[in-house]
């Protein structure tokens, strides 16, 4: 007798058990510790925190492990957890001028107050596979740890004073548009309210900040290739630790909640000026949790491209299309909807099948009639 299979539940359980086994891999090898992931796969953890919109190194490392290194899956795990957390208020705006700077470069000035600080970067490395990493090294050699310590102390020195941002220096001369003043209002929260287009700049920046790195990279790249060209310069890119300050209403003063690491990119772009405004530089802004310069720069390029309307520029390029750019930049949404095509669709397919068969038989009849 024909019986519709009831194996679904059991099959799912078994598939999940198999997944757990595959995740663990060869059991003769030690399981990776979360501290190892956090310490050695730092940039993966950073990306998960940035696009997961949750600053928690330990949970992000757990997510990377649980997701078998699939970062979008890890981001998804973090998002699903984040959504259950209560909100007890908004922090004060981060003051990145007071950042404990670990890296800071400007492409617009050879030297500037605070100096150029290369910090940990892949830039200028030769991309040659380093086979010496294929060993369980415990400590780095004497000489390189000496260099690292030297670097650390130079960082400590640069912390003492506030490091002014390049855009602040340009701003003193009026060469760059002023950053919009803080109106003191509660910023829109895209995770707590539905977005409705057109959106304000804060909403746009929030959306981009959790947007997919690869997507923003491609869109940012497109602006460099003539689709909404904005003649960008990296005014400054800095990475380091910033204090998060919170003012509880019942206390009446600010409390330090701890520090977060962020990458900030201030892009300086050309602007021809208009009848009201003399020629001056404009800003594109990027801010990302952790060290992710690629994302911060892409974000700044796309953010600038989206400002075409207020700057009276010609529209038409993909990166300028707010609804298009913002509606599709979330990789958790995108991957879910793309991958939902794996779900059964046989009811709808049946309906289409029926129509195609009917239309084919009509077509055949018509052809026969035409031939007669």
């Amino acid at each position: 007798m024909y019986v519709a299979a009831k194996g679904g539940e059991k099959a799912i359980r078994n598939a999940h058990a198999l997944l757990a086994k595959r995740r663990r891999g060869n059991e003769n090898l030690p399981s990776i510790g979360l501290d190892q992931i956090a310490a050695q796969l730092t940039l993966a953890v950073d990306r998960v925190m940035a696009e997961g919109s949750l600053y928690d190194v330990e949970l992000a490392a757990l997510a990377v492990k649980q997701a078998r290194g699939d970062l979008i899956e890890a981001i998804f795990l973090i998002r699903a957890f984040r959504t259950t957390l209560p909100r007890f208020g908004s922090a004060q705006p981060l003051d990145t001028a007071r950042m404990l700077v670990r890296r800071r470069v400007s492409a617009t000035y050879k030297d500037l107050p605070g100096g150029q600080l290369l910090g940990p970067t892949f830039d200028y490395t030769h991309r040659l596979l380093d086979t010496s990493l294929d060993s369980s090294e415990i400590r780095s050699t004497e000489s390189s740890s000496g260099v690292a310590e030297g670097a650390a102390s130079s960082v400590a020195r640069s912390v003492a004073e506030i490091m002014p941002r390049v855009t602040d220096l340009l701003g003193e001369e009026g060469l760059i548009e002023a950053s919009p003043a803080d109106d003191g209002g509660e910023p829109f929260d895209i995770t707590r309210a539905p977005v409705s287009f057109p959106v304000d700049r804060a909403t746009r920046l929030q959306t981009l900040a959790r947007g997919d790195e690869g997507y923003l990279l491609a869109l940012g790249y497109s602006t460099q290739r003539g689709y909404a060209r904005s003649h960008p310069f990296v005014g400054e890119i800095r990475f380091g630790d910033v204090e998060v300050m919170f003012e509880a209403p019942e206390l009446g003063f600010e409390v330090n909640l701890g520090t977060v690491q962020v990458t900030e990119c201030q892009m300086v772009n050309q602007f021809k000026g208009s009848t009201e405004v003399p020629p001056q530089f404009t800003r594109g802004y990027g801010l990302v949790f952790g060290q992710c310069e690629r994302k911060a720069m892409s974000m700044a390029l796309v953010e600038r491209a989206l400002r075409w309307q207020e700057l009276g520029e010609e529209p038409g390029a993909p990166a300028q299309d707010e609804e298009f750019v913002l509606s599709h930049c979330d990789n958790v949404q995108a991957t879910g909807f793309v991958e939902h095509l794996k779900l059964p669709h046989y009811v709808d397919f049946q309906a289409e099948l029926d129509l195609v068969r009917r239309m084919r038989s009509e077509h055949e009849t018509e052809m026969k009639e035409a031939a007669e």
Partner: protein
Amino acid sequence: MSAMPAITYNFAYLDEQTKRMIRRAILKAIAVPGYQVPFAAREMPMPYGWGTGGVQVTAAVLGRDDVLKVIDQGADDTTNAVAIRGFFEKTARVATTTSTREATVIQTRHRVPETPLREDQILVYQVPIPEPLRFLEPRETETRQLHALAEYGLMHVKLYEDIARHGHIATTYAYPVEVAGRYVMDPSPIPKFDNPKMDDCPALQLFGAGREKRIYAIPPHTKVRSLDFEDHPFRVQRFAKPCALCAATGVYLDEVILDDKGGRMFVCSDTDYCNTRQEEGHRGEMSGASPSRQPFPPRGEGAEGGALHLSPPGRDRSEAAGEGASGGEVRP
């Protein structure tokens, strides 16, 4: 590193504030039938596009005494239905059922149950794209205006062009409807066969689109009209043969491929309806066949747990082959 703190979740996963926000959106949706109410959809522990909207609506309306049924493609045992039902069993500890009659809340993807619904039931639809005009106009800013002005010419032109080009309205599922004489609404990707069931339905029908952050509703006993033309009235699919298992007619059937030589059979898409009829003694032409080899043996990793495929009998193919494909369409 320090030990991870234990993580605990609220009844039906969402916190009470979120559920309150969703209930407000639902109330507004009921007050303005067919209108898409924006709501602050949360990230859920299942992927977008896999029913997060329906899950949030269900979580918001579910009480401890509710009996929940979850179907996907009309079936209770498809993988995603199993996963969602398991989610609520775990997070809300509510009773679940596969019986349409016993359920108080039914979450569905792509079907309306064949068993008529009652006033004490809620049908929650999972919606991928809530905007019926989306494929005619991709911009939300534009479609919002079109709805505000009840400017649905675009949709009528599309349906007309279908007729001009194909001789038919080439929309077979997610067939647009007009609700309470005002808003044009996407009924979610149910086959148009199910559209007439939405009209004057005694149950409350709620629609949740998580990724697109929209909720809409059809209150009980509301007029729901499938768009059509006087000379091209709305028609639904009709199957030439009854269900091969329970002999039901006038129901939506799934086509099951039996072999690689064109053999196929048609069975009820609604598994509960089909099983109930068989228990009542109804027999289709293939229900008496003896169990035989599975046409598709489980393959590869993860197949140990039993194949997800239906397992029809391996009887003589020539009987089933080429039959019952299309019975044309009829007016509902």
